[in-house]
């Protein structure tokens, strides 16, 4: 009886989320819609962004090379030319909105709607412009190989934990140039300081830690940002992201891990947040106050990056390739050999 009630509550939560997405979709204005070009079987990328012009060329090329067929993007009031740049890209459909990022659950509502509208029947990838997917064999097999295989295994979702990358020395020391691989600068990461807990209600794992916990949340670890992500999903209209891409409904989609000792296949979202661009970004976002929990994360960066400058430590690990991440246990190829 209790189980049924819990099920009903989850269903209600999911439907509320979907209704909310529909309502919030009124805030979106289509700027250029090329969704007619989407072919059957295309992998679609969904992104919300604001003033990211400098990052876009590398971002788009990275995912094009992996085999993403179309990009559906929501531009939240950029004023640096992002909008115009994206309009000129042949595989991008663009929506713009001046509405509040915070009020739309940090973009989740907008993207839930676009996924509902265009994503059903496709594998969808929800990533920010500073997140780069690394999956097993990504150097030799396109993303389609992965999604084909996941489908053959009956899997609907694929997890990729967020891995914060950082440079050695002050973040401002090496300026990022447009088109450059950000991981030429932010080449380092924390290999083994992650905390995992299981969220009983939605069955997802709650992962925190990494450099952000180490450098900014040493005193209040519970406030460290969540790193668990499920960005790649074989989308259906009944699905909805609950908060960022950390959790999904129906909750079965969150069960991306094996709980009897085995390893499921998983990837990593390499996070190129800590570049010189973050200082300006932190200032701007602090002023706008549009981020999670009163933008306290950005407040911490603003303080932390000024005090310490360097996120690097003696036991930081330098990135080589996906095999390294798999040996370190940050991701797994499972039985995809």
């Amino acid at each position, binding site marked *: 009886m209790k189980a049924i009630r819990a099920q009903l509550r989850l269903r209600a939560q999911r439907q509320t989320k979907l209704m909310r997405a529909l309502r919030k979709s009124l805030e979106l204005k289509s700027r250029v819609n090329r969704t007619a070009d989407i072919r059957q079987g295309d992998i679609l990328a969904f992104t919300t962004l604001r003033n990211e012009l400098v990052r876009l060329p590398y971002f788009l090329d990275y995912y094009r090379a992996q085999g993403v067929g179309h990009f559906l993007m929501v531009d939240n009031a950029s004023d640096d030319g992002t909008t115009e740049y994206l309009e000129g890209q042949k595989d991008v459909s663009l929506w713009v909105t001046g509405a509040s990022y915070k009020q739309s659950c940090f973009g989740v509502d907008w993207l839930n709607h676009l996924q509902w509208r265009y994503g059903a029947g496709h594998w969808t990838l929800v990533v920010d412009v500073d997140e780069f997917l690394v999956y097993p064999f990504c150097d030799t097999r396109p993303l389609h190989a992965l999604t084909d295989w996941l489908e053959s295994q009956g899997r609907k979702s694929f997890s990729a934990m967020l891995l914060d990358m950082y440079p050695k020395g002050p973040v401002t020391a090496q300026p990022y140039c447009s088109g450059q691989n950000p991981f030429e600068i932010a080449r380092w990461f924390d290999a083994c300081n992650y905390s995992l807990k299981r969220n009983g209600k939605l069955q997802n794992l709650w992962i925190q830690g990494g450099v952000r916990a*180490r450098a900014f949340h040493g005193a209040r*670890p519970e406030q460290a940002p969540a790193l668990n992500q499920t960005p790649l999903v074989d989308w259906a209209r009944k699905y909805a992201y609950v908060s960022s891409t950390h959790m999904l409904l129906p909750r079965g989609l969150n069960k991306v891990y094996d709980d009897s000792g085995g*390893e*499921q296949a998983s990837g990593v979202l390499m996070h190129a947040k800590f570049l010189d661009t973050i200082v300006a970004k932190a200032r701007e976002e602090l002023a706008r106050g549009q981020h999670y929990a009163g933008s306290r994360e950005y407040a911490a960066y603003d303080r932390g990056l000024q005090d310490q400058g360097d996120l690097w430590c003696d036991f930081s690990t330098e990135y080589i390739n996906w095999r390294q991440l798999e040996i370190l246990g940050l991701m797994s190829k*499972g*039985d995809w050999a």
Partner: protein
Amino acid sequence: MSTDPHPTPAPQSGPLGIVMLCHTALHRAAQVAQFWLAANCPVVIHVDRAVGAAQMDAFKQALGPHPLLRFSTRFRCEWGTWPIVAATQAASEQMLNEFAQVEHVLLTSGSCIPLRPADELAEWLEQRRDVDFIESVSIGHAPWIKGGLSEERFTLYFPFSWKQRKWAFDLLVNIQRRFGIRRDVPRPLQPHMGSQWWCLSRKTLQGILNHPKRARYDRYFKGTWIPDESYFQTMVRMVSDRIESRSLTLVKFDRNGRPNLFYDDHLQLLRRSDCFVARKLWPDAQGLYDFFLSGQIMRETPIDPQPAKIDRYFELAAKQRSDGRAGLYMQSRFPLDDSINAKTAAPYSVFCGFQQLFRNFDFWLGNAANCRVHGHLFAPEKAEFYGGAKVYHGAISNSAALRDYNQRMFLANLIWATRGERQCFSYNSRDKMTPDLNWFMATDRNAQISVISGCFILPLFRGDYKVDDVLGHIGWLQRREQEFIAILQSKWTSADIRVWTLAEFLQDPQRFLSETVRAAFPDAQLAENDLPQIGSLDGFEDYLTHLRNLGLPPVLLQDYKR
């Protein structure tokens, strides 16, 4: 038996005939068929009836007319059902009837690929003219099946489609099991199973197809489950006397019984396997198709297939999926408490009381065992890493708050990040001891926990404290230590546990200490390094008496007599 529709004399062909069963990725099937045709091997193709007319036309067009090419009667083949066998029979009959020179018939699928030149295979078979290559395993013996039904494939009824009515399929299987409903295997059939993909000699294949009781057996097999893995495998036992029970087609199945796919990065692995045919390729594995269909050079000496290496490769992957890496907690491996034995990646040692009893115990142990010994990793102020490091391997911070946010993960991370170097640390009741952490270590078979109880008093005894000031504190420490020991002495532990009271330990400290250290470090240099000194215990007995008289229950110290 179908009749030859061609009035012209049968075309000249090589001795190897290829039967191809196709249903998807027809453009790839066409490429492979052309490869065989170019090598003068006749090809009979069965295309699933579910394939639409347009696709079929495009396929035929891509292949074009060829004197050695035939298309066989089309069936609708659903996975695990009889029509797959019927299609194979029909195509094989056509092959034998229309191409008189064919001595061996190789059954392949549209997503198989030849790994070696066709001539190499033909020549290899030429030297084994009467041999039949078909994996045929008696169901009584090897556990050939991965998941699902084994012997019951032959003895139950399967009227429902597994794909379309899975619930009805499962229900009926359970009902039959429950009520013991069985159908008899017609004698003298001896059920055998094996890979669907075989290579049979003309004589054997004819023997099967023209068997006097074939109609009876066909009827029986129509009712079994997955007959494509048992029909030929069983029938061959009645007509052939030279069976090599192995398939010439390399297939690796995963835990769900699906064939593993091959990708471009498997090229070297496939090449070195020296197998003749591999299944199944990812249709977009362009590199593999380019390489293997481009006409490799035929080698002089005949080489046997060597699938061992590729077997090993996929076995390792299967093991990673089913067992995972011990002690790893990550986004896609998060074992529940009771599902694993080893909770951490490697053995480690926990010392309780040693640091208090002996002078510079950590320094001494580090020298004796040649390792880096931590202080109190769970000290209230911070994690006392070796050398007072602020950050340790894996970028683990010494922050007490971060550590205590998830103590298990702190410990599991440290052990994972330092695999290859045994971790040793002190732990006592002054530390951030929580039941969760205590249970975690006590039930971890990698943990070696050695406790000298009561030692927590020594720093207070040696320090300059008024007894009345610390009495409450001592009581608190003692209670925590007792709770810890109660866990260690419960029946659910799997760690290597030693517990002494201080009095017991002092009876022969040398022996107890060296035993403990040797259990962790068999090579420890204990002779060359003198045992660490025990700090002065003068007046300790009086101190304990005093505590007792002040009202402290001296649970673990009552036997202390010096």
